[in-house]
């Protein structure tokens, strides 16, 4: 179960030259970029403004909105990566964020070594990893390449390895940012099946994406974010409809 109440997230901006900051402030409209601190000498970007949300077992939430609307930040809050500046966050259950599909992936380590390291970062135990390794190896179709350093792989091969590791976890709460890339088209079908099964065995799923097909295929509810606000929430079709209307408006 995940509960967000009036969550506010500000990103501080450091190290930008003063003139640049002034320019930024001059251009900012709607208080999106604001000054704070006693002497108004700090600059912060408000990424989320009073976001409330409740996710329970079985929920598959789609998060849509234009670039910079706060989709990834919202996922970060759901993951427990960003502690909000104000508001309440309750996360019950183990969260598995798959933003970067292969945390800890090292180009100099072999494919098998990386399966262990990434798997551990994604919260798997050694026993789980060992049990999953044959399935991962089989899915990647990398064969003996898995004994070679990842440095020798093509970009597509690395993607396949990362995808296979990421989709072997058993998440309670699964968070996805823009789905998961799976390399070449030949893999698309098998990758889809694997991703579907991952989503199937998760208790709660939240996906941020621009891909309406993915949202429609996976989700049973959606939120539309705009400028850090929740602009619409509810059924997938209604929210996507609202989103389309807003975009077509001049």
């Amino acid at each position, binding site marked *: 179960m995940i509960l967000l109440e009036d969550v506010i997230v500000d990103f501080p901006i450091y190290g930008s030259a003063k003139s640049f900051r002034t320019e930024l402030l001059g251009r900012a409209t709607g208080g999106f970029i604001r000054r704070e601190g006693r002497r108004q000498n700090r600059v912060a970007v408000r990424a989320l403004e009073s976001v409330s949300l409740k996710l329970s077992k079985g929920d598959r939430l789609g998060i849509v909105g234009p670039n910079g609307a706060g989709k990834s930040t919202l996922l*970060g809050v759901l*993951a427990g*990566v*960003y502690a909000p500046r104000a508001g309440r966050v309750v996360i019950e259950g183990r969260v598995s964020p798959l*933003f*970067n599909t292969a*945390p800890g992936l090292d180009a100099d380590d072999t494919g098998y*070594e990386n399966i262990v390291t990434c798997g*551990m*970062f994604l919260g798997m135990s050694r026993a789980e990893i060992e049990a999953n390794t044959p399935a991962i190896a089989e899915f990647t179709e990398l064969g003996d390449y898995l004994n070679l350093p990842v440095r020798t792989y093509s970009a597509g091969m690395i993607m396949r390895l990362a995808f296979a590791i990421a989709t072997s976890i058993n998440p309670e709460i699964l968070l996805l940012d823009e789905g998961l890339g799976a390399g070449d088209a030949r893999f698309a079908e098998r990758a889809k099946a694997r991703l579907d099964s991952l989503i199937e065995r998760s208790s709660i799923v939240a996906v941020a994406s621009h891909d309406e097909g993915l949202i429609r295929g996976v989700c049973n509810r959606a939120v539309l974010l705009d400028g850090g606000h929740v602009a619409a929430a509810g059924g997938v079709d209604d929210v996507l409809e609202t989103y389309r209307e807003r975009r077509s408006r001049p």
Partner: protein
Amino acid sequence: MIPQYDVALADFTNGIRAWRLWGRLGWQEIKRRYRRTVIGPFWTTLSLGIFVAGLGVVWASLWNQDPKTYLPFLCAGMLGWNLVQSNINDGCTVFVGGEAFIKQLPFPYSMLVWSGVWRNLIVFGHNLCIFVLIGFYAGVPVTAASLLLLPALLLTSLNALWMATVLGVVCARYRDVQQVVASLLQVAMFVTPIFFTRDQLGPRFARFVDFNVLYHYVDIIRSPLLGRAPEVWSWIVVTGMLCLGGAGTLWFYSRFRRRVAYWL
């Protein structure tokens, strides 16, 4: 800012519990650093050996010292100093270097600190080989006091843990601190009695050495290596630093841990 003591403590304990992962990370890092080199991590050892042998012989004759007492003294001091220095320097980059993880995953940040401390212990183990060689040549005695090396390493590592946590957080926010720390340490190496004994300083300056915390960190490692028990005052200072530093870190970390992800 509201302190979150439970969050800070949970970060520490969960960090320890993730020992399989940080153990692996530390180990892989060592392996990685020297991949495709012939003698691997022994390069650090070899360069330390060359340094000690070269400087040791020259300075022993400069200061009219017996190389058989000066070389082991210098080598043991450098071993202790290297451990302390790399723990502090690595502490500065521990969270900046872990940005990819901190921004992607919920996990105990202290795990990154543990992996660095563990890595430096492994390096220390490698460097120990040089001391064994020099000790053999110079006939350094192995006594009951040599066993004090183990508690000394434990104390050093626990101290490194809190230092790296604080420095890691501060350096995430203020990137200049890392440079400041690195330059100060460089000077400290020459000011701290490592190349010379505190007695050589003469009575006027020798008493200031008691206030040099780094000296005590080096001493508790150096003395057991040389087969002597460290000064009692050194144990007191190092243990005191651990208690004070640990408490201070809890205070600090419970307030600023939540900000780290934003600063990276």
